[in-house]
């Protein structure tokens, strides 16, 4: 099997100048394929449809997490209500200021093991799949790769999948 056989077509995406408020609204309602599961991350596409970044739940967590807390161990000295305060402060920030810019992508005909290699080595949960022109055509999710593995283990898949 190849990346394109397991990917889910991209229907929802973000624009770089969306505010975080727009972004979280979309994250909340966006669905992963046919299943009614909210997605944990969305691609950010510019006007030409070119992939410029990814915005995930983790990026939103990072956005409320003050930079100084990375510098020292200060977790014990936070207060109730701090998270909500920080959340209000970031509402109007733009997606492009917080998105992950250095996005790893795979080609549509990449073998699944190539995808797993990237997922394991770079700790990626969502891999954008691009066509020959570099346009994003789908997303490959860790969970779907997992199900492919499950299938193989339970001999429901003959492998090679021509």
């Amino acid at each position, binding site marked *: 099997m190849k990346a394109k056989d397991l990917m889910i077509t991209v229907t929802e995406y973000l624009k770089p100048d969306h505010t975080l408020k727009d972004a979280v609204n979309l994250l909340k309602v966006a669905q992963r394929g046919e299943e009614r599961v909210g997605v944990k991350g969305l691609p950010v596409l510019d006007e030409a449809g070119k992939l410029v970044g990814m915005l995930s739940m983790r990026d939103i967590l990072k956005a409320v997490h*003050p*930079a*100084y*807390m990375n510098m020292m*161990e*200060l977790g014990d*000295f*936070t207060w109730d209500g701090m998270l909500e305060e920080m959340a209000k402060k970031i509402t109007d920030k733009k997606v492009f200021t917080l998105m992950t810019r250095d996005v790893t992508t795979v080609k549509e005909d990449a073998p699944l093991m190539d995808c797993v290699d990237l997922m394991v080595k770079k700790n990626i949960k969502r891999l954008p799949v691009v066509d020959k022109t570099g346009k994003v055509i789908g997303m490959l999710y860790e969970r779907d790769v997992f199900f492919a593995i499950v299938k193989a283990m339970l001999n429901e898949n003959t492998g090679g999948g021509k």
Partner: protein
Amino acid sequence: MTEEVKAATAVVMGAKFWIATAIFVLVYGLIIADKIHKTILAIVGATTMIVLRIVTQEDAFHNMDLGVDWNVIFLLISMMIIINIMRPTGVFEYIAIKSAKVAKGRPFAIMAIFSVVTAVVSAFLDNVTTVLLIAPVTLLICQALDLDVVPFLITEAIASNIGGTATLIGDPPNIMIASKAQLDFMDFVYNLTPVIIVVLIAYVITIKFIFGKRLTVKEELRQRVMAMNENEAIKDPLLLKKCLAVLAVTVTGFIFHGMLHYEPATIALAGAALLLLVSGTKEPHHILAECEWATLFFFMGLFMIIGGVVKVGLIQWMAIKVLDITQGNLFGTTTVILWFSAFASAFIDNIPYVATMNPLVIDMAKQLWPGVTGLNLLHHPDLMPIWWALALGACLGGNGTMIGASANVVVCGMAEKMGKPISFKQFMLYGMPLMIESVIICHVYIWLRYYVMKI
């Protein structure tokens, strides 16, 4: 005296003189231009000096007067190792949270106590390290109290430069001066610490006038700070006890190193070695890797570049010019060195500045007292105030602008990260008057102590 000066003016301005001077000017110019990293420039300049045979590799590596001053390098490395082991204990978080609570969450009290704590810690640790340890907690406290963090960050950076001036190990210029002039830890304590205490008191009073009225906090927000439990900061009490014990031994070692005829680097390295041994460090790789190698190589490169211009006589020529200007008047020379150092350090890195001035002061001394050599020359009673003026000017001068000292650069970087960038003008508006105030105090001190009371 002028005849003696003229007699010694025989600096041969040959090809080597101009090549070395060109390398020196070019490297310093590019450091100021700040387009290429200063460490790379220093390494390139240093190797150019060796490749063009201005200095030999033997000079650069093994001659303390013409090459790397390993006393400075090992003192810095050792202190970095000690900090790297100490940081994870949480002691610095503890001190900062405790300070905010002692201030009862009142904003000016926090500013004053943080400044004093920063100054005291800076007297023993590197200024940048100190600021990196206190600023994150400051940001947290300001967030809790809904205060503008910028005045706090600026006052801490300035306090750290003031505090660092107090001791031999507090600021790199002092380490360099101590090594070149063979001054010991207690020399600095006797001569610089008293005036720095006065400067610090004046500083706190001044910032009270500047910021005191402006800072207000809602009562309920203060409760957030009061609810913090500083004891939770201590992550490893056993390691902390070991660190504090080793630190106490090391500081005691510094106090007595002159008496025991050990170089400061020996004391520091012994402290680092002891702490590495007792801390139960299994894999020293991280602790050693986290030393600031870029800074260390910057020092090494500079020492070799300066070695080149010393060897060809540029520094001697500059020394003669300074003496021409001051007509050999010693208080005049001290005054010029103090104020020139302050303004020079406000705009350029005080490390290359002091690296240049050290041999210049020694060459000046050679011109002034031609027959005197060794310690008699370095510790000539009339030369001592010049060393202190250089230390005070170069260290305190860093407060003038945001690029004057590394601690300033670091806090400005943090402010920018927090979305509150500090402009060059904004920093200078506070830094320059505060710098001038501190240098005036030092000027009066030097005049009174060394020229009126002569003690």
